[in-house]
């Protein structure tokens, strides 16, 4: 069963084999959870929203017409549910400008002396976990799910160039920090 494609599993579930849906859950739960955790910054919320996403996916499986990949369709549910959770918690959904502000804040924060002695990989993990929701979603889909920018733009319902801008900004933030930290180390 685990070797079946998403399409084969969905067809089986649609025929009434509800138990087969667990294969899809196992296939996507970790990646979707990682993305949600980075967007919501909270394990509990991430798990709660993820559960809701799988229930929504199951309920709407009959409307899935195989026009796109299941992963793209499912990540759209995940992304939109995360945004709903963020807005329902009255947290500000970042727009393009505030994303840049948040990135500047992260850059200045992690260039501070407090983080000089930290290992790069630990630091990068911390920074990634603090990225604004949209940046976190793009980075997760691009690096973890290995989705193309075209697929990501379908999930986020924005243009490919906007996806690239978000991805490059996130990467540039890390580059700046790595570059400047190396300079610090050289000076020390």
């Amino acid at each position: 069963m685990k070797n079946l494609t998403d399409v084969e599993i969905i067809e089986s579930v649609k025929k009434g084999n509800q138990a087969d849906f667990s294969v899809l859950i196992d296939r996507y739960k970790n990646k979707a959870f990682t993305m949600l955790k980075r967007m919501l910054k909270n394990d509990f919320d991430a798990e709660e929203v993820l559960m809701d996403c799988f229930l929504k996916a199951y309920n709407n499986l009959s409307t899935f017409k195989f026009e796109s990949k299941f992963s793209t369709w499912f990540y759209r549910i995940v992304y939109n549910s995360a945004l709903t959770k963020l807005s329902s918690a009255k947290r500000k959904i970042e727009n393009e400008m505030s994303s840049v502000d948040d990135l500047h804040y992260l850059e200045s924060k992690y260039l501070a002396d407090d983080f000089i002695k930290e290992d790069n990989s630990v630091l990068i993990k911390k920074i990634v976990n603090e990225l604004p929701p949209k940046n976190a979603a793009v980075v997760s889909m691009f690096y973890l799910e290995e989705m193309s920018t075209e697929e990501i733009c379908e999930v986020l319902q924005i243009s490919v160039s906007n996806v690239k801008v978000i991805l490059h900004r996130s990467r540039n933030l890390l580059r700046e920090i790595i570059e400047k930290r190396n300079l610090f180390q050289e000076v020390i």
Partner: protein
Amino acid sequence: MNNIDDELLNKYLDGELNQDEKDLVRISIESSLEVKKRYEALLKAHNLLNSIEEESPSIDFTKLVMNKLNKRSVIAQQQKYFLLSILSLLGLVILGITGYVLFQVISSMQPTQSSEMVTTYTKDLGDYISNLFGQKNITILGSVLSFIMLISGYFLYDYQKHSKKNFSH
């Protein structure tokens, strides 16, 4: 060499440049220490992002979701049975009323010899139903039926509210 901006380096990293642009960036990296440092830092950021591991929800997550789905199926089935029983009850009431009306129509017609026997047998039953729907009892019967419908409606509403709550948690 100064026109090698971050955007171009990112595109070089993602393999999105044409051959001329690629050559330009490659030569810049080889000849300028500043561009080389920027590119190496970008490559390191890219590799670190690539190496970040995925995280997992609780161990029994799949089981929890499947339990919710199963519970939902059971609730949906119960709702179906409940609706069926309400509809059956209403059907019986409608059938009773139709039967009574039909009886009234038949008994008002001139009895023929062939139907005389049937009429005699059904007359007693007719009298009983007439009594039941008579001026005195019709109010009581109406009240009882309305009460049953109100109770059914309340339970139906409560059931739906309860199942909606189950879906959302």
